[in-house]
């Protein structure tokens, strides 16, 4: 089982149910999980907190979309480079290319992955 002790993860997901299920799963591996429900809140939280070990980022978000969140992070030298895994139900070639070009470490399609598979993907990034 993955061990995320002392690892801080920001989960950005507007569907409260999905957010709860995934955060609970990550916390079973002892991660310190904070949650944002829209892009605006995500940017505020990223700027207001010490650098996260990882951001799990949905793309279709209220107020500010996921790609714009990545652009805002890239534009701020204090938080630029924070590892980001995109976690979306999109996943067309152009979405993946855009995500990677903006610096995403991985692009995961939520619906085709189990919660354990997502935890494994997280573990690969925050060893």
């Amino acid at each position: 089982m993955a061990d995320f002790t002392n690892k801080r993860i920001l989960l950005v997901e507007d569907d409260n149910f999905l957010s709860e299920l995934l955060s609970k799963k990550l916390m079973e591996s002892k991660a310190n999980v904070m949650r944002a429900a829209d892009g605006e809140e995500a940017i505020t939280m990223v700027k207001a907190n010490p650098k996260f070990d990882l951001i799990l980022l949905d793309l279709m978000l209220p107020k500010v979309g996921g790609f714009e969140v990545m652009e805002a992070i890239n534009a701020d030298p204090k938080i630029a480079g924070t590892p980001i895994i995109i976690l979306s139900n999109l996943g067309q070639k152009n979405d993946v290319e855009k995500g990677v070009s903006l610096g995403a470490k991985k692009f995961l399609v939520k619906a085709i992955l189990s919660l354990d598979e997502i935890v494994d993907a997280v573990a690969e990034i925050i060893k």
Partner: protein
Amino acid sequence: MNLFSIFGLGGNSHGVRKTESSGKEEHFTDTYILALVHKLRTPLNAARWALDSVIHGDDTGKEAQREILNEGYNKIISAINTVNEILKAAEMDSKDGVDLKKEKLNLCDIVDDILKTLGYLIKRNEIKLEYGDKCNPTIIFGDREMLDLSLTNLFDNAFRYSPKGNVFVALTREGGMAKLVIKDDGIGIDKEDMSHLYEKFHRGKNAKVVDPNENGVGLYATKKIIEMHGGKIEVDSELNKGTTVEVDLPID
């Protein structure tokens, strides 16, 4: 039935844009297929994770598990509703049209049922709903399932896009018509989007900002169903002020 016929994108009727280049038309179709795939993937994803969490998660106790499964069940219903909505739209577009299964209906009952079904949205968005306790029976002759689909869409829009706002509902009779008014003080619709209001799958720019995941057949189907019942719909809206929808349906 191919995908073009399912989404009614083979022709230029119903406000669907047909481009001269077949490549562009395919792209247009793809855009909406993708939007619908996304709309289906989201609840299916949630249902999968719900089951996953109960099967493989730490034992959280029966009551917690029941809540998770209940939410997963609701998500599956949501996916089924999306599929039904698409099929109804396809049926309406087919050359044979759709056979209305008409019967005597009390509009009050339909509105009551819709308000019950959308109770979760009223609660989630903290809507202050103003609707008389007692509705005067208003009998119309119509297809229950189709009217449900059509009017649910209108109420859903009012509740979804008026977070923490007010929604006023009135059902009255004027001459030989039943008049349903749904007035909200929500995000409204801008002038440019108003001109595309009845296009299939069209969504206003500000609607996408509030709820990017929602994506249905929309007012296209709503208007068509009302007109199939000999009625009419009028929408008046102002950006950031709110929207008023008036539906007139002939009384039996």
